[in-house]
């Protein structure tokens, strides 16, 4: 039952302002009265009267209670409600423009809501003085002449709302929710909650702007302001209505940070042209871009609406917006699961296997690749749409990677299967290792954040190599021994010619920490190197047209070349080693 609490003025003023400043002034009461919903209990209503108000009849109390509970429209917005409802706007959009920030009224059945709203607007004249006088002292602030106009023509709810184009009317139906449910079901994802996203046609912004200008005008007449941000966004209201419905169908909660996203894309062709006049007024907001189908992106329209003067807008887009014949169309219902990341270390034993597919002018140069050998199996298990392979550095096609291998990580984009046990990962690793070209270890699921470890200090880390060197001049064992004594050799490397087409030209200092030579024959020796990461070893061997100095050739006063190269170790401690 509704119990009006009547509090002393001083107390009230404080309470009202601190409990809920936005609720000051509620429909059905004069501006001097304030009705707020107690925060601790949504069904309890507290009437706060801080000044002497007009007399309200006891029957009116009941009405006031009802309409407040259901609609929560504040008195000051009443004229907006009238205006919109009479120009072809649906009751839910009326709530939005009356700044009703609570989800409950939006969730009322459409018919009830429409009825309540009509009753609320047409009955306001009935508020008669109450039988008992409420006297709480003097106040100059009392303004009993609120602009209450008796009876306005409130039209029947239009077929399709001219502000939401039917989204808050027909697209929150159980049928539509069922349609979403079937789509999610057939997509076959593993998920434990969901987040719902909506893509709206940009002309809704134009219509929204138009209504806002009118509503603002109404408020100005009362010497009040109405900021665009005060209006409840269509998206928000839509989610308030549809979230519980989808939630019930799917049997899981709507969570804003969920990894699983269900998105609907709406369009409305009949009104697409609404935006077009903006081009004539704000040309520079609509520059054609390569990837966008239309210049009328939401971003561009927002920008243009921000720039356009109210007069210009009203001239080109007169109030009220046309009532559309059709409802927004659902052009797509998309499901997407956030990426899963898998990391590990790989060895590469082949000198004819590139790390990533080698394709030039659409033509495949080498069969298979490290990337493909690993991801093929992962994609099957996680049922992802695509993947992104990354690693701590990379080796050339003719370079082997030995030792404990090179850390890598794979982003599996839009995976359908995500509950993958450690055992499954182990089996997966074994399957990948069913080739003699590569071997994978420490295969595990990691977080996106952990990926940073792989790239961390890529410049500072060291790498160990083994190289087979050829010399033009004939050499004896003694000729290569001097290399063993060279420590922390500073070299200067210009960006190698072989990568210069895609990297900036620079001359970078690099350090060869240690070298160890092993004489083989008159023209060959093996060289073990420990170098700063980022050193180009092949160029250090042959000199790259004298662009790496010093180089093996220059130090040995001959022409040198590198015939084979192996990576012996990549000193990055990630991902963590797993037991076998």
């Amino acid at each position: 039952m509704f119990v009006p609490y009547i509090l002393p003025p001083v107390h009230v003023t404080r309470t009202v302002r601190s409990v809920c400043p936005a609720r000051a002034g509620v429909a059905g009461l004069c501006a001097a009265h304030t009705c707020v919903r107690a925060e601790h209990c949504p069904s309890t209503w507290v009437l706060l009267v801080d000044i002497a108000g007009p007399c309200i009849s006891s029957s009116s109390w009941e009405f006031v209670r009802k309409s407040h509970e259901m609609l929560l429209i504040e008195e000051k917005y009443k004229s907006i409600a009238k205006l919109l409802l009479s120009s072809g706007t649906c009751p839910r959009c009326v709530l939005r423009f009356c700044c009703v920030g609570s989800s409950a009224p939006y969730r009322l059945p459409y018919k009830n809501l429409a009825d309540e709203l009509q009753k609320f607007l047409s009955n306001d004249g009935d508020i008669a003085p109450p039988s008992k006088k409420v006297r709480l002292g003097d106040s100059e602030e009392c303004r009993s002449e609120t602009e209450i106009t008796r009876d306005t023509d409130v039209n029947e709810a239009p077929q399709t709302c001219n502000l939401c184009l039917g989204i808050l009317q027909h697209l929150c139906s159980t049928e539509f929710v069922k349609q979403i449910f079937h789509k999610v079901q057939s997509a076959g994802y593993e998920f434990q909650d969901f987040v719902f996203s909506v893509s709206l046609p940009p002309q809704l912004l134009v219509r929204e702007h138009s209504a806002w200008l009118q509503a603002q005008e109404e408020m100005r007449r009362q010497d009040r302001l109405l900021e665009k941000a005060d209006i409840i966004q269509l998206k928000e209201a839509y989610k308030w209505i549809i979230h519980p419905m989808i939630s019930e169908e799917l049997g899981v909660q709507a969570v804003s940070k969920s990894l699983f996203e269900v998105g609907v894309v709406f369009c409305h062709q009949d009104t697409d042209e609404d935006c077009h006049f903006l081009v004539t007024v704000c040309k520079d907001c609509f520059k054609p871009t390569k990837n966008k189908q239309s210049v009328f992106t939401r971003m561009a329209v927002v920008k243009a609406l921000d720039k356009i003067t109210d007069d210009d807008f009203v001239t080109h887009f007169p109030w009220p917006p046309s009532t559309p014949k059709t409802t927004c169309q659902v052009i797509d219902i998309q499901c997407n699961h956030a990426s899963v990341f898998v990391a590990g270390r790989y060895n590469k034993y082949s000198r004819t296997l590139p790390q990533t597919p080698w394709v030039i002018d659409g033509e495949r140069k080498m069969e298979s690749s490290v990337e493909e050998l690993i991801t093929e199996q992962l994609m099957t298990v996680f049922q992802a749409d695509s993947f992104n392979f990354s690693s701590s550095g990379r080796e050339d096609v003719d370079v082997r990677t030995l030792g404990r291998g090179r850390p890598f990580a794979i982003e599996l984009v839009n995976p359908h299967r995500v509950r993958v046990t450690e055992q499954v990962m182990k089996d997966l690793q074994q399957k990948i290792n069913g080739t003699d070209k590569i071997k994978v270890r420490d295969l595990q699921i990691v977080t996106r954040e952990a990926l940073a470890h792989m790239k961390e200090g890529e410049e500072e880390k060291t790498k160990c190599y083994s190289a087979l060197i050829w010399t033009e001049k004939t050499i004896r064992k003694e000729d290569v021994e001097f290399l063993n004594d060279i420590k922390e050799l500073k070299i200067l490397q210009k960006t190698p010619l072989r990568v210069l087409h895609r990297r900036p030209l620079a001359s970078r200092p690099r350090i060869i920490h240690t070298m160890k030579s092993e004489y083989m024959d008159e023209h060959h020796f093996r060289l073990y190197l420990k170098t700063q990461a980022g050193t180009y070893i092949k160029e250090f061997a042959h000199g790259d047209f004298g662009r790496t100095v010093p180089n093996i050739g220059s130090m040995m006063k001959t022409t040198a070349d590198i015939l084979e190269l192996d990576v012996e170790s990549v000193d990055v401690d990630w991902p963590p080693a797993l037991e076998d």
Partner: protein
Amino acid sequence: MLHPPVLEIHSHIAFVYSRKTRGHLEYKLYVCSVIIDLYMAEACQQFPSVVDRYFTRWYKTDVKGQLYEDYCILQHSNRICVITLAECHPVLQSGKNISSISYQISANCSRLQNKVSGKSKRGAQFLTEFAPLCRITCCDGDEYTIYSCIRGRLLEVNENILHNPELLKEKPSTEGYIAVVLPKFEESKTVTEGLLSQTQYEEVLLKRTSIPDSKVDL
């Protein structure tokens, strides 16, 4: 063990020699020996050199109508071109000594001022086919202008040859390079269209050694 073409060249030298032609004989013999070296090198080193592994050799002869001023352009599979002098170029002949090399090609343009930045190599000087790259002055007073031969952006010039001109003579196709040029992506295939392939160039060299008005049947 000689390649059949090498044997062919040998017989040709013999032929040329037998005619006892004067004037260019010495030069022609030199040209033949270059070709022989080329084949010999290929035959002896089983492992192809850095240049052979990654680059295609293109040639341009008698550039700007200057007799024997031949160039060898090394095009990497990534479309980058290294401009070098072919071994026949007069500057590289024995007896010639380089006194100076200058990348200052006009009063207000020096190739040394070329600076490129970023992956897209912003700020590069753009070269047309006949854009001069540098001037080489020899001790005998002869001066040679070296041209780009390739349309594209100048990425770098070889500053090492400024301090050490001998590099040009010792290793003309590697450390003695003149400049690095990046053709436009869309021109990467067409940029070498007017140039000679290695085989075509060898044919030109052979023709040079023969006497213009005599028909030589090899």
